[in-house]
Structures are given as C-alpha cells and as structure tokens.
C-alpha cells in the first residue's frame, strides 16, 4: 500500500476503488439482466407502498443491487422522518 498525503487527508478516493465499485454495480445488473428503467420503476413503486407506513422524502431513497457470495441482495436505504400514527394510511 502506497498512501500519498492527499489520500491520507481524504481529498480524493483512489481511481482503482471507484473502478471496482462501478464495475460491481454494473456487473450485478448485467448478470441479473436488470436495467436502469427497471430500477427506477422499482424505486417508485416501492416508495408508493412505503409512503403508506411512514413519512420520508422520495429523493432521499437510495437503492442498489449487491452481490454477497453467490446471492444478490437488494439494498434500500430510506431515511424516514416518522412513522404514521396507528394503522397504515389506506
């Protein structure tokens, strides 16, 4: 490991780690044969359902597919403001 001063002070991530991160995402999508349109649709429909249960901003939701060993995991990160009182809104 050869850490330059710039990396040490966290100014710029190494381009090799960016490459790896980008590749992992795109290859997972290639393997599962899902495209951006599919992910956008899933994002919207999931947000619609979740909005019945708690309050959050749609723009703050981030979703990604990840590979863990031999299986794939859908990771959705949803910072919520609060749960709706009582039962879900109909």
């Amino acid at each position, binding site marked *: 490991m*050869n850490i*330059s001063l710039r*990396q040490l002070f966290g100014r710029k991530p190494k*381009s*090799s780690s960016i*490459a*790896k991160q980008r*590749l992992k995402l795109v*290859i997972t999508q*290639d393997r599962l044969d899902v495209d951006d349109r599919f992910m956008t649709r899933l994002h919207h429909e999931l947000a619609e359902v979740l909005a019945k249960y708690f309050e959050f901003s749609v723009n703050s939701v981030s979703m990604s597919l990840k590979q863990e060993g031999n299986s794939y995991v859908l990771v959705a990160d949803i910072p919520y403001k609060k749960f709706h009182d009582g039962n879900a809104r109909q």
Partner: protein
Amino acid sequence: MGKVIVVTSGKGGVGKTTSTANLGTALALLGKTVVVVDADVGLRNLDIVMGLESRIVYTSMDVIDKQCELSKALVKDRRVDGLTLLAASQKNNKDDIQPEQMKAICDKLRSEHDFVLIDSPAGIERGFSNASAGADEAIVVTTPDVSAIRDADRIIGLLQHAGIEPINLVLNRFSPELVGNGSMMDQEDVLDILNIDLIGIVPEDTGVITSTNRGIPLVYEDASPGSQAYMRIARRLTGQRIPIPDLEHKGLLTNIVNWFRNR
C-alpha cells in the same frame, strides 16, 4: 488424450492472440505436444504473431471442405519440437464454419496432442461459439480495466452455461507501478468481481511489442518479465503448483518491513 483449451476474452485487444502464441510455445518448450488453432476466421493473426505467416498452405476451412487432411494442414514450428499451428481462412467469414465442424477438428487434435489451444475471436457471437464448441477448459484473458472486466464477466457466464470447466483467468498488462499508487485495480479487486480462479498475472512488458514485430514469441527470451510469467502459467497448465508472485510495487516502508519479516 490431451486437453482442448479455448483462450478467450470478450473484448478485443487484451492479448488473446499473444497469450495463445506464448502459452503454446511455452508448453512445447516444456516438452509437450501442442497445436495452436486460430479460430478468428476472416481476421486471422495467430500466424503472424508466431512468425509463421509465410508458411501457411492450408487452413481449417480446407480441412472442413475436405480439400486436405487435417495432419497436412498443421504447420510445424521449426524452432521447437512438438508445436504446430492450424491457421484460419482469411477469405471466409465466421458463418462459413459450424460449431460441430470445429468440435470434430478439436476431437481429432485432442487424440494426438497433449494440448490444443484455441485462439478465439473477440465478441460473443458465432466466432466465439465456434471457438468454444470443442473446448474442455477455458482461459479468460483480461486487463485490469473496466471494459475488459465487464466483457470478461459476460464471457465467463457464457462459458459456464456451456458447461466448460475449469475457467481460469489470466490478468494481462498488469502494471505494478499503477497498482502501487492506486490507479489500477489489483488481482484481489479483479478476482472479487469475476469470481474465478487466477492462473497467472502477466506484467506490462514492452518486449511484447518487439517480439510481435519480429514474429518470435516472448517466451524464447528467458529474462523478460512477460516471458517468465507465461512460462509459469504454462507450468501451472501442466499441473505443477507454482505460487503466483506478488508483483505489486509497495512503498519503501512496506518493503523494509517485508524484508525483515521474510528473514
């Protein structure tokens, strides 16, 4: 009974032909009988990379068309015992050959040689299906960049679907300096993404350019890092267990620490 190994990559220009030429020559230098087959019909290059371009009389197309016997189409490399080349036709195209016809050629060659190395064309279409039709095993060549790795992953999926096993990875044009300063993915990054076994790392070596200019595969030159890497891979293909050396350039401090550790 020998092994038929397809050398493939998906993306062009990552070193399939150079790897086929060097591994074929290296295996022959180790005393094996080897035939290297150019499966890139219409865009043949294995002959010129190996320096055998002036000696091609017949091609695999002539064998399929029954214009000549298979044994007569094999061009003997006079520099080393046991190495021959089956060239591809330059005037035909990939659709002129059927996968079953390639398979028949591979089956015949397998019974008479220790190793049959097939140089696959780039792409995932007919040329690739022809090249892999008769293969028992595969070597996937990639360079440590995003487009080559993404295409390699696609090819690995197709090879697995075809039941070809094992699939071994050659990481080509690896730059220890660039990996050392974080500008290039290292072998662990690549293996983490591709999930197959690594059979060797070939460092970037300008000797490849001059050896291709001359038509003399790099492995004839003992000292070059590329030559040594290909010789190690060839030994691993023959079943020898040779560890993969760590090529990464480490910082001065790490080197000092390792020097003390290894004493």
